[in-house]
C-alpha cells in the first residue's frame, strides 16, 4: 500500500472510532432500551415529565448562564486591554491568566474554598453564589483566550477607517470592534457554558448540595439505572448540539479559537 498523507490520519481515526463513536452507540443503546434490552421511549418521556429532572435542567441553566455572563463581563475588557493596550510584556501578562490552568483543579478549588470561607464566614449560606464563583474561577481563561485572539487579529485599519469616516472611539468600538469580535465571544461562550452545566465537582467541593445535570447523571448510575442516566446524557448532548448550531458555523470562528495558546 502506498503511503499517502491520508495514512497519517489512521491513528486518530482509530482513536475516534474506539473512544468517541463506539461509546456513543452504547449511549444510544442504553438510552432507548429498558433494563431487559427491549426498545422503549420511556426514558425520554420520563425525563420531560419529571419535575425534578426538569428543575435540575433549569437550575443548571441558571448557573451556566450567570457563570457565562460573569465570565464575559470579566473577560472582554481584559482581553481587549491585553490585545490593544501598549503592554511591554504582553506574553508575560497572558501567562498570568493561563498559569492557573497549570495548577491542579481540585487544589485550586480547595484554595478558593478556604478563601471564601474567610470572606463569607459560612460557605453553606451562599450555595448558588459559590457555585458561580467557583465555576468562573475555573473557566475564565477559556473565555479570555478566544476573545483575545480574535481582537488581536483585527486589522487596525478598520478602526482607522471608521475614525476617518467620522465615528468617534465609542462608535468605532460598538459598530466595528465588537461585531468583529463576535466569533471569539461565541467560541468563549461555548467553552464556558456547557461545562458549567455539568461540572458538579465544583458544587460538591463548595458545599452546594443541589444536583446539577452532571450529578443527576451520576446519581442514576450509582442507582444502577444506566438507561435513565444515558438518556439524560443524550438529552444534554442534544442541547449542546442545538446551541452550537445556533452560535457557531461562521467560518471566522474556527480561526478565533485560542486553542493553540492552551
Amino acid at each position, binding site marked *: 500500500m502506498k503511503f499517502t498523507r491520508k495514512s497519517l490520519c489512521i491513528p486518530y481515526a482509530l482513536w475516534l472510532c474506539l473512544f468517541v463513536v463506539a461509546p456513543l452507540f452504547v449511549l444510544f443503546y442504553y438510552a432507548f432500551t429498558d433494563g431487559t434490552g427491549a426498545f422503549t421511549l420511556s426514558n425520554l418521556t420520563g425525563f420531560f415529565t419529571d419535575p425534578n429532572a426538569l*428543575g435540575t435542567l433549569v437550575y443548571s441553566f441558571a448557573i451556566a448562564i450567570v457563570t457565562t455572563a460573569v465570565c464575559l463581563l470579566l473577560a472582554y475588557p481584559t482581553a481587549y486591554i491585553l490585545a490593544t493596550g501598549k503592554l511591554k510584556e504582553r506574553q508575560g501578562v497572558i501567562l498570568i491568566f493561563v498559569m492557573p490552568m497549570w495548577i491542579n483543579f481540585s487544589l485550586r478549588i480547595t484554595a478558593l474554598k478556604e478563601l471564601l470561607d474567610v470572606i463569607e464566614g459560612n460557605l*453553606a449560606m451562599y450555595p448558588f453564589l459559590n457555585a458561580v464563583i467557583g465555576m468562573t474561577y475555573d473557566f475564565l481563561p477559556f473565555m479570555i483566550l478566544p476573545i483575545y485572539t480574535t481582537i488581536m487579529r483585527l486589522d487596525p485599519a478598520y478602526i482607522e477607517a471608521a475614525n476617518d469616516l467620522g465615528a468617534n472611539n465609542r462608535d468605532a468600538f460598538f459598530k466595528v470592534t465588537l461585531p468583529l469580535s463576535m466569533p471569539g465571544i461565541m467560541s468563549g461562550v461555548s467553552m464556558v457554558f456547557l461545562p458549567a452545566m455539568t461540572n458538579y465537582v465544583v458544587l460538591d467541593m463548595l458545599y452546594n448540595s443541589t444536583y446539577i445535570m452532571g450529578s443527576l447523571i451520576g*446519581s442514576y448510575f450509582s442507582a444502577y439505572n444506566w438507561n435513565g442516566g444515558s438518556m439524560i446524557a443524550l438529552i444534554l448532548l442534544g442541547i449542546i448540539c442545538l446551541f452550537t448550531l445556533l452560535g457557531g458555523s461562521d467560518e471566522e470562528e474556527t480561526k478565533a479559537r485560542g486553542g493553540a495558546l492552551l
Partner: protein
Amino acid sequence: MKRPHKLTALALGAFALSLLTSPVMPAFAAEGTSADTGKTVTLRVCNWEEYIDTGDWGEDETIDLPSGDIRGDNSMVEDFEQWYYETYGVRVKVEYSTFGTNEDLYNMLTLGDTYDLVCPSEYMFMKLMDEGQLVPLSDHFFDTSDENNYYIRSVSPYLENIFQTQERNGEPWAKYAAGYMWGVTGIVYNPNVVTKEEASTWNIFDNPKFYRQVTIKDNVRDSYFAAVGAIKSSLLTSQDFLADPNYHENLEEEMNDTSPEMVGEVQDWLQGVKDNVYSFETDSGKADMITGKVVANYQWSGDAVYTMDQADEDDYTLNFAVPEESTNIYFDGWVMLKRGIGGDAAKQQAAEAFINFLSRPDNAIRNMYYIGYTSFISGGDDDRIFEYLKWNYAADEDETDTVDYNLDYFFEGEGKDDGKYVFSAPADAVDRQLSAQYPSTDVIQRSSIMRCFTPEESKLTNQMWVNVRCYNLSKITPAGWVLIALFVTAVVFAAVQKGRRRHHQSEAGKRQMERRKKD
C-alpha cells in the same frame, strides 16, 4: 463502611471500555486459576481503601503489651505470603486492590473484574448472596481444633452469634461471610458548642440552633436511617416501647420501615434537613470537623475515632455521641466469589487462610491500630485484644475521675455480665474514642441492623433521594418563570434570525449566480 464518593463522569467511559474488553477478561481469569502457574497460588483480594496495615511503623509506634510487643514492619499482605509458605509450604501471590464504596465494588464486579476475596458491607454481601455469586466457607474453616483457624477460634462471640442468626433466604450470613471490621453510626460533635443531649438525637440535623453548621452523609442508606430515627424519635424513646419484652425485634422492624408512606415522610424530612445542614458530605466531613467549619457531623464509628485522634493532635477536643433513638450497627465481611475461586481448592484454601491470618489477634491489633476501625476479633483464649484495649484506653493509676467500662458482651456474648471484661477508664473517655471503637452495652442494646433493600425498595428510596437533591420545578418563583420565558424567547428568536440570514445569503448567492450566467 468507609467514605463513599460519587461515581464520576469517568464511569461512563470505563463502562463503555469494559463492554469492549469484557469478553476477554474471563479468559484471562481462567488462565490464572489453572495449575500452569506452577506451585504459586494467585489470590486476588479487593478491600476498602486504607483498610489494612501497610507496615513501615516508626520506632515509637510499637504497641508494648504486657504479653509482648506488636509492630507492623512489613505490610500485612507480605507477612501473609511469608506465613502461608512457612505454614503450608505453598507459595501464594496476593494481588491486592481496593474499592471506594460498596456500589463501586458491585459495579466493578458487574463490569467483569474478577476477584477471589472481597470485603463488602453486610447489605452488599446480602445482595451478592441473593444473586448466588458467593462460595460458602468450607467446613474446615469452622473447625476449632485446627490451631491455624484463627477466625473461628478468636471471633467475638457476640458478633459470631449475629452472623449465625441473621439469615438471608434461609441461609445464615456465617455460611458465606467472615467478619472483618464493624461499628455503629453516631455524631461527632464539638462539646464547646453542642451539648451531649443535643448530639444524642438524629433530630440534630434539623435543629435550627445549628443552622448551616452540621453535616449529614451523602448516601441514601445512612441518611434514610437517620431520618427514620428522627421521625420516630418520640416512639423509639417512649417508656412503653423500651419496656416491651420484644424491644429489639420491634426496634429493627421500626428502623427498617420502607413503606411508601415512610419513604414519603423521609423525603419531606430530608428536604427540610437539606435547607438546614452545612452539606451532604462524602469525605469532607472529617476535615471540616477538625478545622471547625462545622460543629457536628454524622459519622461511622471508625472514622469518628480517626477524627477525634486528629483533633487531639491539634489540641482540639471533639466528642462522640450515639443517638438515643437507635444506631445502625454495620459489618464489613470477607466473602469468596464463585467467578474468582471457580472450584479451585488451592485458591479457596489460600482465601480462607488469608481471613484466618487477618484474624490472628496480633494482626487484628495491627489493623485496628492502623485504620481506627474495630476488629471482629475478641481473641478467644488469647488475651491480647483485651490487653490492647486497656493499653489504649485504661485510666492511669493516679487518675481519680474514672468509670468502670464493661465489655462482657463483646468478649463473652450478648447477655453475659459476669464482670470479667471490665476495666477502669477515664470518665471522659466514655464520650470519646473508647465509646466509638467499643460501643457500650447500652448502645448495643439500641443498635439495629439495616437490611438490604429489595430491588423495589431500592427503586423507591433512590428516587426519593434524587427528589431530595434536585431543584424541583415547583420551587421556581413567578419571576423565575418570567426569566425562563424570556430566555426561551431569546433562543427561539436567535434561531429564527439565523435561519432567515442563511436564507437571505443563499438567495443572494443564487441571484448572483443567475446574473453571472446572464453576463
